[in-house]
């Protein structure tokens, strides 16, 4: 049987469209820098299936799209980080190193596999100083974006980012950052949210800076 010829441009376009459709179905996540660190806010109706996770002392992961796919990536990131930190030193695990590893992996899967991963993800690293914070966004095809102050992933990421940039101020309190995130979701989604998953990377938390916040303990003012 003669295989059909498909132009590479067509193939890539089809794969990208497929992945984007999958991601658009998922609920979005935003990351906002505040005075003591980085706030991660995800719309998530489930209390047990997390979209936000600790990766290492100063690094957190957020993923949208297909649960089993970003869960595979999350676990792989934790493995990579723990192995590096164990073989060398805890300080040798950086957000940059992890983000490039994710980017290469997703890029490889996009070009070599039949079906690309339908995910978008964030790798956030809280620095010793606010100027050393890092927000990396990685898309389904492995494209890596280095972002500042605010970022968003998921179906409504563009509208969310725009709303966040408008309201962002440097040195905001946690509550102000949370309010900004909630307001951005309202603007972008134009509906009531289904429940929040909240986590922070906070400079004052000791060695492990990641902390989950109970949504009941935090309400928009």
């Amino acid at each position, binding site marked *: 049987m003669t295989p059909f010829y498909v132009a590479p441009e067509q193939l890539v376009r089809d794969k990208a469209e497929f992945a984007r459709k999958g991601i658009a179905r998922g609920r979005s996540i935003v990351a906002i820098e505040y005075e003591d660190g980085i706030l991660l806010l995800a719309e998530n109706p489930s209390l047990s299936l997390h979209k936000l*996770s600790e990766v290492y002392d100063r690094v957190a992961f957020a993923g949208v799209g297909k649960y089993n796919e970003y869960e595979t990536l999350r676990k792989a990131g934790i493995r990579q980080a723990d192995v590096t930190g164990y073989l060398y030193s805890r300080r040798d695990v950086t957000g940059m190193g992890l983000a490039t590893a994710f980017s*290469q*992996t997703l890029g*490889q899967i996009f070009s070599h596999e039949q079906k690309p991963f339908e995910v978008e993800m964030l790798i956030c690293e809280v620095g010793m100083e606010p100027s050393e914070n890092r927000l990396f966004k990685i898309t389904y095809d492995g494209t890596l974006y280095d972002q500042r102050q605010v970022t968003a992933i998921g179906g409504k990421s563009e509208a969310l980012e725009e709303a966040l940039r408008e309201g962002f101020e440097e040195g905001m309190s946690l509550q102000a950052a949370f309010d900004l995130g909630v307001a951005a979701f309202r603007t972008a989604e134009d509906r009531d949210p289904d429940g929040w998953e909240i986590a922070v990377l906070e400079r004052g938390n000791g060695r492990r800076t990641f902390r989950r916040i109970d949504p009941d303990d935090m309400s928009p003012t």
Partner: protein
Amino acid sequence: MKINPDRPLPLDAPLPGSSFSDLISSLGHAPAVDVTTRVEGKLETPHGTTVLALRYEGGVVMAGDRQATEGYLVAHRHIKKVFSTDHFSAVAIAGTAGLAVEMVRLFQTELEHYEKIEGTRLSLDGKATFLSRLVRNQLPMAFQGLAVVPLFAGFDDIESLGRVFSFDVVGGRYEENDYGSTGSGSRLAKSYLRGAFQPDGTEEAAVSTAVGALVAAADEDTATGGPDLIRDILPNIVAIDSQGIRDVEEGLIRTAAETALGGVR
């Protein structure tokens, strides 16, 4: 599993997939050293000596002296033998210091790795079982005289109480009812604890009992270093309760050491 240069993340892991030590073994970084031939003569390596843990109302206190010996010599005066392993547990080590410290590092990474992958901590029993596996893996080294014997303590959030586990060189795991101790001065420390232990005492009382037991051990065991107020060398002590683990304040340890040493004089 090998890390593929084109796909740098370890996407698949050995079953059950949440164990860090299985992961590094599969990557070829296992810390185990296989000693197949018997070494003539004794290998002189720094040894740690007396460590102990005792329960009190609502928690557990763990303490260790600071001295490492090499034969009849003092190798280090400031070494640390009590390590927090996660938010609710700690390990104290006795035996070959170099191997013990590495074992603790692997144990700490294992607990944190499991917690991050699974989204929940191992139970206290689960942690103790895993530690006994690490001790058992050292058995070939123990036959060469390089034994590591840890002591494990933590707060059990299911039972809501502090618990103490001791181990032997083959990895046997024994839960202690009231207190446990290991190392060359452990017999002396235990006879002190037998008389002084109060099951429903406060944390402060448990700290002074722990310091008293270390002073008693250092008094008659040449390999145990007691509190040294001239050089300001104080035992490492941690307390673990429902709020988690924390280092006991130095001032409190110093006062307890002064009292205990005064009693000896």
